[in-house]
C-alpha cells in the first residue's frame, strides 16, 4: 500500500504525486510500479507507472502521471486522490529498463511527451551521483507549456557541462523559440544523437509509434540493438 503525501502540477495535464511507501526495498532509475484500483463492484483495473524520483532507498517515491481523459486509471490518480489516501501499489518492477550511476557509457535519452518520466529518474539519479560521462536528452513535446519538468531540466543543463538537452515542439512554438520544431526524425537524430562509435547507452520512452520510429532510425544510424532500451506506453498513453 502507498499513502498520498504530496501533489505538484507539472503542466496543465500532467501531475506529480508523491507516495509514502511501506516495505519498500528501494528502486533503480527507470523502474515502474503497478497500481491497481478496485471498484465497489469488484471491477479491477491495473496500470504501470514509471517512477520519476531518483533511484535509491527513499521511502517516498514520486510518480508523474498524464491525465488521459478516457483512461481507466490516470484520471483517478490526477483528480481523484486526496492527501492521506491509500492505494494498492506494487513494485518496484522491471530490471530491464534501468540505469545505474556506475554505468560508464555515454548516455542518450530520447523522450516523447510524458515518456520523459523514467528518463527524469535517470537524470536525477545521475545528477545526485558523481557520474559525468557525456550525455544528452532529446525531448519531444507538443507545445512549450506541455514540456514536463521544464525548469528542472533547464537547471540540469545549466549546472552540468557534460549533459545537454535539446527540446523539440511538434505543435507550435513561441516566437522566440530556439529549439527544434518538428517531430523527431532521421535528420534530427543524426544531428543530436551521440555518435554510434561512442557506443552510448540509449533509453527511448514514449508512445509506441514514437519509440518504434526513433529505435528504427537509431539502428539505421549504426547504433547497436543491444545498446537501445525502449519503453512504450501502448495505445492509450496509460502503460499496459
Amino acid at each position, binding site marked *: 500500500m502507498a499513502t498520498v503525501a504530496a501533489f505538484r502540477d507539472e503542466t496543465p495535464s500532467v501531475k506529480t504525486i508523491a507516495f509514502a511507501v511501506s516495505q519498500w526495498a528501494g528502486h533503480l532509475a527507470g523502474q515502474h510500479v503497478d497500481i491497481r484500483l478496485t471498484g465497489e463492484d469488484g471491477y479491477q483495473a491495473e496500470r504501470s507507472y514509471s517512477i520519476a524520483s531518483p533511484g535509491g532507498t527513499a521511502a517516498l517515491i514520486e510518480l508523474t502521471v498524464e491525465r488521459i481523459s478516457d483512461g481507466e486509471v490516470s484520471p483517478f490518480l490526477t483528480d481523484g486522490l486526496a492527501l492521506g489516501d491509500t492505494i494498492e501499489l506494487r513494485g518496484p518492477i522491471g*530490471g*530491464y529498463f534501468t540505469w545505474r550511476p556506475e554505468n560508464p557509457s555515454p548516455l542518450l535519452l530520447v523522450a516523447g511527451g510524458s515518456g520523459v518520466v523514467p528518463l527524469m529518474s535517470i537524470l536525477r539519479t545521475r545528477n545526485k551521483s558523481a557520474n559525468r560521462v557525456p550525455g544528452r536528452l532529446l525531448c519531444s513535446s507538443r507545445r512549450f507549456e506541455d514540456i514536463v519538468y521544464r525548469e528542472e531540466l533547464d537547471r540540469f543543463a545549466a549546472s552540468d557541462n557534460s549533459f545537454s538537452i535539446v527540446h523539440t515542439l511538434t505543435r507550435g512554438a513561441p516566437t522566440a523559440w530556439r529549439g527544434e520544431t518538428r517531430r523527431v526524425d532521421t535528420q534530427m537524430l543524426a544531428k543530436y544523437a551521440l555518435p554510434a562509435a561512442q557506443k552510448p547507452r540509449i533509453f527511448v520512452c514514449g508512445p509506441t509509434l514514437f519509440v518504434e520510429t526513433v529505435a528504427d532510425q537509431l539502428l539505421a544510424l549504426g547504433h547497436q540493438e543491444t545498446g537501445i532500451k525502449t519503453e512504450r506506453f501502448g495505445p492509450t498513453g496509460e502503460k499496459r
Partner: protein
Amino acid sequence: MIDDVLWADGNAAGGVLARFFAFDVTRMLITCDSCGAESPLGALRLYGGQMGIILRCTKCGAINVRALENGGALTLDARGARRMTYRPESNSS
C-alpha cells in the same frame, strides 16, 4: 497498421509475471521457439488485456509467453519459448 500501435514492452509485464517467479523476469533471456531469436523478456512486445498478457517475439511475432488471470487462478503458458536463461549476477544497467 492497428497492430503497430497496440503493444507495449515486455518490461511492463514484470508486475504480472512477478506472481510466478521469485526473481525479476524482465532481464531473463527468452529464446523464441519459432525463429530462435534471443531477447530479454523486457524487450518483447507486450499485448495486454484485462484477462491476461501475451508476449511476442520482436523478430517474427510468434507468441513466446502467455499469462492468464482467471477467477483467482494464474496460468502461465510458455511453450513458445524454447529456452529461458537467467543470469542473477549479470548487470547490464
